[in-house]
């Protein structure tokens, strides 16, 4: 099979994730788009492990999965706190820190 296949699929997923981060207003949806981006990177790591016949990519992918789990936990806790304080999780309303 072609090595390009995996990498192009990962590129498509990454770009869809970037579009989601830019376009979405709901904080939970932005977190979902970030998951798409992290999965695209993981797919790349696995594809490079396969291409170079080297297992280190698998270890990296596992570490990225662990970091992503931590990120989602903290991110959703922050979203819950923001919702409790402001009754809304629309990102464009969080503008107190504007300079």
């Amino acid at each position, binding site marked *: *099979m*072609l*090595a*390009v*296949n*995996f990498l*192009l*699929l990962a*590129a*498509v*997923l*990454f*770009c*869809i*994730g*970037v*579009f*989601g981060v*830019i*376009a*979405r*207003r*709901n904080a*939970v*949806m932005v*977190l*979902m*788009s970030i*998951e*798409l981006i992290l*999965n695209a990177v*993981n*797919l790349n790591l*696995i*594809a490079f*492990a*396969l*291409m170079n*016949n080297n*297992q280190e990519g*698998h*270890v990296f*992918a*596992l*570490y990225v*999965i662990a*970091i*992503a*789990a*931590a990120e*989602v*936990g*903290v991110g*959703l*806790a*922050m*979203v*819950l706190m923001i*919702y409790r304080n402001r009754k809304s999780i629309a990102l*464009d309303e969080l503008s107190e820190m504007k300079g």
Partner: protein
Amino acid sequence: MNALILAADNVNVAQNIAFGVIATVMIFAAFSVVTTKNVVHAALYLVVVLAGVAAQYILAAAEFVAVSQVMVYIGAVMVLFLFGIMLTRAQIGKEEGLNNKGWQLGIPVALLLFGLMAYVIVDTFEDQVITEVTPFPTEGIADQVLSPFLVPFLAISFVLLAAAIGAIVLARKD
């Protein structure tokens, strides 16, 4: 180009077909995640994408990572997302105002980024063919994690501990 490669020997056709089918489903589901008007549907489409990624890992001979993906993402992260959606009281059904005002800006950014990445990827790996997929033993991962990558492994355990405690502290009521 693809059809030519498919017809060549020493290329696993079944693997290519499976890749194509899963990739199509994944791209459709990922597109639905960022375009649907229903937050719960977006979460359920994300399950399809994550399961597709796990299937691609199996195609790429990374069984342990695939199992971890299913357990961590589909098992834990999705439940977390659904809790997050329910606790922030998303509307049931269609919801307006899920997108930013200037959301169209995302389309040229994503297309430009994809064009650049596709050009670089195709230019670099154009005719690299993975002829034979040799499965990696899972012991190899254990050997890697517990000797050359031991320090990052310990660091990750501290990060997870800190994240768990931090999430509890942030989400507590008082």
